[in-house]
């Protein structure tokens, strides 16, 4: 080993302080905490809908929010793992689940089972409001995950930004969804899935610069 390397190694060793190692469990706890805070915010600001409280919402409501939640946790698990890089890590599962989630808007826009026309769905007077509120709630998770990965060592900032956006959008929208009284397939499948797309685009474009190291 050359002298410069030896010198550097001695310097780094002299600077050594104990650190708390990253563990997947800590990341999952962070995810849980972000979801709980999101739910509290939704409960305080909007309140949960009657359908949610009494369990009388339509099956589409539970189906869509269930899918959003599972998709959000799948992306969150990838984000958590990205903090500790390793050759051999795979993240393709989240993309397959994204395709699965995409079935909802495709079915809604086709009008199968509902008879709704795409034009009526897209001009839903409450739709944009729901999408924006869901996106706003997503900020809680996005901030938590960005902080997590800034302390970690993600080696693909673009993918990390995208997955943070998708996870936050899905979990934020699922949390906000509990306050929404509209439970038709055409509303939920479009306007409650839209925050996932918004989160993905914003995360992919805005976050990489914060995550490079």
């Amino acid at each position, binding site marked *: *080993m050359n002298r410069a390397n030896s010198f550097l190694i001695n310097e*780094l060793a002299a600077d050594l302080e104990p650190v708390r190692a*990253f563990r997947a469990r800590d990341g999952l706890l962070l995810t849980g905490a972000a979801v709980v805070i999101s739910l509290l915010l939704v409960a305080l600001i909007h309140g949960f809908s009657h359908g949610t409280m009494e369990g009388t919402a339509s099956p589409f409501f539970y189906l869509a929010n269930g899918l959003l939640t599972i998709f959000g946790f799948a992306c969150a698990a990838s984000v958590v793992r990205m903090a*500790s890089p390793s050759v051999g890590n795979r993240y393709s599962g989240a993309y397959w689940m994204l395709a699965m989630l995409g079935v909802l808007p495709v079915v809604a826009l086709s009008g199968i089972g509902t008879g709704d026309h795409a034009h009526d769905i897209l001009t839903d007077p409450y739709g944009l409001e729901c999408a924006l509120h869901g996106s706003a709630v997503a900020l809680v998770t996005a901030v938590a995950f960005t902080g997590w990965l800034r302390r970690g060592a993600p080696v693909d900032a673009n993918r990390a930004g995208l997955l943070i956006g998708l996870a936050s959008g899905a979990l934020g929208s699922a949390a906000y969804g509990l306050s929404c009284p509209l439970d038709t397939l055409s509303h939920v499948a479009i306007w409650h899935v839209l925050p996932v797309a918004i989160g993905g685009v914003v995360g992919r474009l805005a976050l990489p610069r914060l995550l490079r*190291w």
Partner: protein
Amino acid sequence: MRADECTLAGLMIKAQGGDRRAYTVLLSECSTWLTRYYANRIAPSQVDDLVQDVLMALHRKRASYDPARPFLPWLAAIARYRWVDALRKHYRARMDELHEDSAVEESEEDAVMARVSLERLFVKLSPKQAEAIELVKIEGRSVREAAQETGQSESAVKVNIHRGLKKLSALVEKAE
């Protein structure tokens, strides 16, 4: 002597706990490992700088090693990341040519080494991208020289380098 995966992981766990002696041994072993790792994949004059860069990255990000997982794939991911970064930054018109008989001793790569090697990344590039990066970024030829040698236009060489590096940066954790 080469430290094995188990020894390195043990040293890293002690280092995370603040054991300076274990850390010194670990960094020395990593320095040797990285020098071998980068052989023929970056200009010899840049190897030391890159090794030091990775050692500093390891120091800064040492908390990101999860003790429940293997050490070498973690180190290799960081080494690949810094390598792609170095290829991006060091856009030199000309640098020392690679020597065929590198001073670094070849040894038999074990299964882990083969899985995490830099060669694994290169085979994912198109032949033209790999050739352009090899000539310009690693051997230090100018874009014009690379264009003449490969029969590509200068613009094509630039585009292939740009796309190839972008692809490499997305493949850092790829193992197969």
